[in-house]
């Protein structure tokens, strides 16, 4: 009972946070609502028995990315005031596009479910998930250092390049008045 209640709380915070983050006028509030959505998804990961992934979600997304976004929000101009109004036509087109994307996502999900049901019928087994024995963290560690080693190294390279590129970008576009006299 309590588990079901927690599950629906996570679903609701993920969905409500996302929808409000996409629509509220104030960008600072939007960033905070994004955090609510991210925490909700972290809760859903726990229900998927992905404990480590839930930790990563909280540490990297909420602790890293969200803080960066909040920092940028406060840094840029026009934070709390009248943020640039979206024209009505753009809002209409955007809503239409978003609904279309949602419809495609639902259709894809339907197709996947139908395929699962067909497989189920063909094999005569049920698609009800067995529980992963205990914690999946150790399994993920093994996977990252064996089958997923190349993507793992590539991800490390990607992060390094992204960091260097970020620093280089900010350096390069420094205004002349801010530049150091000999650099």
């Amino acid at each position, binding site marked *: 009972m309590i588990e079901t209640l927690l599950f629906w709380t996570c679903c609701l915070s993920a969905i409500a946070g996302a929808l409000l983050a996409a629509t509220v006028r104030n960008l600072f509030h939007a960033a905070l609502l994004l955090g609510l959505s991210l925490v909700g998804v972290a809760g859903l990961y726990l229900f*998927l028995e992905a404990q480590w992934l839930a930790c990563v979600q909280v540490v990297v997304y909420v602790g*890293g990315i969200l803080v960066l976004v909040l920092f940028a929000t406060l840094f840029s101009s026009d934070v709390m005031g009248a943020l640039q109004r979206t024209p009505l036509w753009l809002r209409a087109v955007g809503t239409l596009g978003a609904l279309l994307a949602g419809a495609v996502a639902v259709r894809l999900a339907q197709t996947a479910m139908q395929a699962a049901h067909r497989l189920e019928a063909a094999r005569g087994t049920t*698609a009800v998930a067995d529980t992963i024995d205990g914690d999946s963290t150790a399994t993920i560690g093994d996977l990252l250092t064996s089958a997923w080693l190349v993507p793992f190294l590539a991800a490390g390279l990607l992060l390094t390049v992204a960091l260097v590129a*970020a620093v280089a970008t900010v350096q390069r576009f*420094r205004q002349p008045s801010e530049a150091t006299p000999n650099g």
Partner: protein
Amino acid sequence: MADFGAEFGPGALTSYLVVAAVLFTAGTLAMSTRRNAIGVLIGLELMLNAAALQFAAYGRFRQGAPDPQGQTAAVFVVVAAAAEAAVALALLFAVYRTSKDVDLERTRELRS
């Protein structure tokens, strides 16, 4: 809709897919209607999050036995999101320095 709990409970793939679809829709909405670059970035994060949630959900409800490779793939989505956020915000700062504004409608170049 015979059994709501079995169809949409914590133990059903459908519920996770519905949440992911809504997250993706909200992300698309934010990306297409926001004029502020940070708003667009928020939408992008929502869409990536929806993708990661789907990876984890499909891995968990895989035919036969749960497959931790779904979670592993989701971790890489998170890594890509982190790298993307770092670069996007650096670009944002660069744009802000040259034009004192992050309105995508008015930003045309990075040269000062």
